[in-house]
């Protein structure tokens, strides 16, 4: 592998190596790294869907899925020709309150590919004849999720925890399939006109780039993109609900996926967030965490179990989620043993040794995660979306190292409540087959 004569990573902080430019409403963040020939980018802007309308996110998804079906003077095959003859990649995604786009290309092709991204975002054609095919593809993807016990259980839990107006709510698969058919091409065009604009627009570019060439194309194609006049329309907090259980019975699925969870009011930028994150990591963050060590390694009950702080952002709250996969004959015991571990975790907290071990895990894996251009771009963009300064990338390991066991245990005691856990199960199982008491 040939290495370019860049300043060696690690000698300078990230923030010293990052360049930032404002181009109209676009914030361009660039970081050269010593990879040869490869340029990767991740960008996003706020789309402010009105989550008071049930169909908003599905329509947003449909709009995004049609961005590659022609733009400006180019039909879908002309767009594909530009990308495919260069081996460049470009993808768009609907991410609840934002639209994401990401891509990579060889150095010489990156400006053209980025220019194409701008054209697709700003001037999509939305040909009417493509609408039925786009709907079929989304319906196919929904049906694939319906066949997954993991997707079904996760969705059922989110439906239990959140109202429809909350960004973490998940619409039922059946409702999505029904609503999809109602959208017209006018709906698609109207949504694009109202929600696609340079609102909180950030573009992060990483790799072996010609920075001036990229800045020029961003200036030409994105700087004049106007923001829309939009206010956030979603519920930032989840209403507390009495715990309960949902069972999605799926024939022919002998493995059952189980999700336990309750909502969290904490936000990503709260002082207590990182202590809580680290404490949860001790419980279920990786293979050597408590849940995998007990439920899998010692008892042999599952292939996989873990816990996470799901869907927490600076803008809205999320939930504590425990996920476990269990063969049908081990469902009851698997849930009971998991519940015991959760109760022990909340009642007794964690030890200093456990905390110190996970600190080095998290800081080490942070370093590993930043070792690809995509890992860097995605992490930088995520930090910016959360409202953190660019220097957060350098500060994060030290923030982790400073957390004390008292802070972690205090966060556990104040936040996690086993009695408040909801449950959702999906597989070849009926409600009367299982008893979930945490």
């Amino acid at each position: 592998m040939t290495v370019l004569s860049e300043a060696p990573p690690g000698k300078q902080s990230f923030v010293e190596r990052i360049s930032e430019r404002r181009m109209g409403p676009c914030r361009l963040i660039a970081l050269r790294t010593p990879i040869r020939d490869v340029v990767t980018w991740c960008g996003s802007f706020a789309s402010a869907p009105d989550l008071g309308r049930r169909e908003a996110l599905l329509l947003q998804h449909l709009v995004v899925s049609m961005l590659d079906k022609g733009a400006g003077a180019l039909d879908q095959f002309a767009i594909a020709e530009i990308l495919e003859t260069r081996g460049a990649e470009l993808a768009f995604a609907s991410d609840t309150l934002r639209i994401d786009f990401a891509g990579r290309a060889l150095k010489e092709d990156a400006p053209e590919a980025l220019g194409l991204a701008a054209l697709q975002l700003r001037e999509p054609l939305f040909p009417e004849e493509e609408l039925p095919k786009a709907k079929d593809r989304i319906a196919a993807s929904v049906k694939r999720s319906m066949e997954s016990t993991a997707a079904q259980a996760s969705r059922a839990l989110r439906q239990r925890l959140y109202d429809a107006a909350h960004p973490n709510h998940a619409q039922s698969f059946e409702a999505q399939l029904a609503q999809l058919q109602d959208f017209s091409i006018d709906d698609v065009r109207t949504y694009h006109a109202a929600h696609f604009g340079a609102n909180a627009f950030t573009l992060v570019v990483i790799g072996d780039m010609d920075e001036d060439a990229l800045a020029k194309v961003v200036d030409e194609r994105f700087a004049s993109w106007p923001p829309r006049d939009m206010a956030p329309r979603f519920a930032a907090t989840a209403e507390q609900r009495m715990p309960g259980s949902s069972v999605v019975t799926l024939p022919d699925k002998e493995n059952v996926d189980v999700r336990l969870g309750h909502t969290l009011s904490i936000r990503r930028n709260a002082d207590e967030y990182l202590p809580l994150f680290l404490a949860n990591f001790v419980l279920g963050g990786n293979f050597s965490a408590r849940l995998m060590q007990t439920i899998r390694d010692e008892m042999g009950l599952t292939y996989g179990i873990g816990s996470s702080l799901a869907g927490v952002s600076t803008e809205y709250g999320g939930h504590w989620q425990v996920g476990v996969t269990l063969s049908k004959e081990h469902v009851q015991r698997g849930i009971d043993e998991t519940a015991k571990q959760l109760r022990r975790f909340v009642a007794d907290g964690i030890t200093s040794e456990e905390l110190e071990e996970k600190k080095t895990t998290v800081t080490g894996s942070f370093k590993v995660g930043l070792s690809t251009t995509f890992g860097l771009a995605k992490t930088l963009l995520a930090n910016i979306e959360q409202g953190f300064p660019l220097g957060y990338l350098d500060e994060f390991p030290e923030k982790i190292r400073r957390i004390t066991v008292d802070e972690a245990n205090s966060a556990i005691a104040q936040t996690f409540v086993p009695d408040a856990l909801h449950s959702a199960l999906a597989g070849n199982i009926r409600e009367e087959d299982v008893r979930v008491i945490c």
Partner: protein
Amino acid sequence: MPEGFAFEEASQGIAAYRLAANGLQVLLLRDATAPVAAFMITYLVGSRHEPEGRTGAFHFLEHLMFKGSARFNKEAGASVFGILQRTGARVNATTSLDRTNYYEMLPVEHLPLAVEIEADRMRGALLRREDMERERTVILNELDRGENDPIRKLFHAVWSAAFTEHPYRHPVIGWRKDVEQMTPDDLRQLYDTWYRPDNATVSVIGDFDKTKTLECIRRHFEPVANPPKPLPVVCAREPAQEQARRVVVEQAGWQGAVMLAWKSPCGMDTDTDALDMLFAVLSAGKHSRLYRRLTDRGLTTSAWGTVSRFRDPGLAYVFARPAPGKTHEEVAAAIQEAVDEIRDNGVEEAELRRAANQRKAQAAFSRDGAFSAAAELSEALAAGDWKLYASMQDRLSAVSAEDAQRVARRYLVRNACTTGFYRIADGEASA
């Protein structure tokens, strides 16, 4: 040259060494883009080497390799996962048809720890009965998870129908009955036969110091001796397929699938390069034949294809999802027509050029991060030669339009085709 090693050859920045004491192969690729390293050990053994009735044995063994070795075990306060994950390492292993690999992607200062652990468990795995019993239910759960997925079942069914004698007909995870009946003696015997320095390659990619790394590898692996019996030679042959085969998977679900598979040559065969390019023309991107003929016409919601690169002849296959209202038969016929068209009329130079450019970019992308290069090197080793990774671009660039048509005529023949349908079981909503 560090003591104890013989330099073998170098290609595309990768240097190959051999540890004189026991024949362990070492591949080094320096990549200073980030202060991390990927360490991967590839054993040239996989489900292809399993005896009849012991399917899933090497996957089972892979699980037990994490249960402890002489020096690294839970009782000693140093479980493999615990000690490695403490450093932030991404740790795991994968078992495939021709190889098993174990890897650590970690901050470079912890590289010696990965070396030490892999050396210790190469011949020092504990393989205890009680660990095996606990892990058996874990694997059976993994198997159940796979059985939940009708597409996974379809893939197994097609491979099982396409191969009648060769062990490629067995799923890597094994058949349930074999996993249930596997004994510690079975695993011990296979471990003692195949896990040894002269059947392994260590690959290190990252921001390491070459001399120190080789010295570290020598220090830990040199004492690991090969078992006295030589490595067995496994010859597996599959008789020529002379008739089309068909297999149907029925399971509850919501969206059917179609798979057409043809026998493909060995991974090292230059005909596989031609098939590789042919399948790129067939299925990569919106200009591909399958997109234009199937997906753009509303016959499928997706369609893609690929060619396996294994030690022995494998499969080249197309997978598609019928669009609502379209039948499996219609989709299979359209795929066959797309293949026939190439067989009869060949491919255009522009199509091949597009495919070659895509592969060139993919090759650059694959060097973004130490792990992806390590993983691709492991697959090249499994196919027969690590240099396949280094020479892949040249091999693919050498494929001509005539080559593509020739291999279409030779391999993509109707009599050697195995067709698989995943149909929604009666009583369920369907596509």
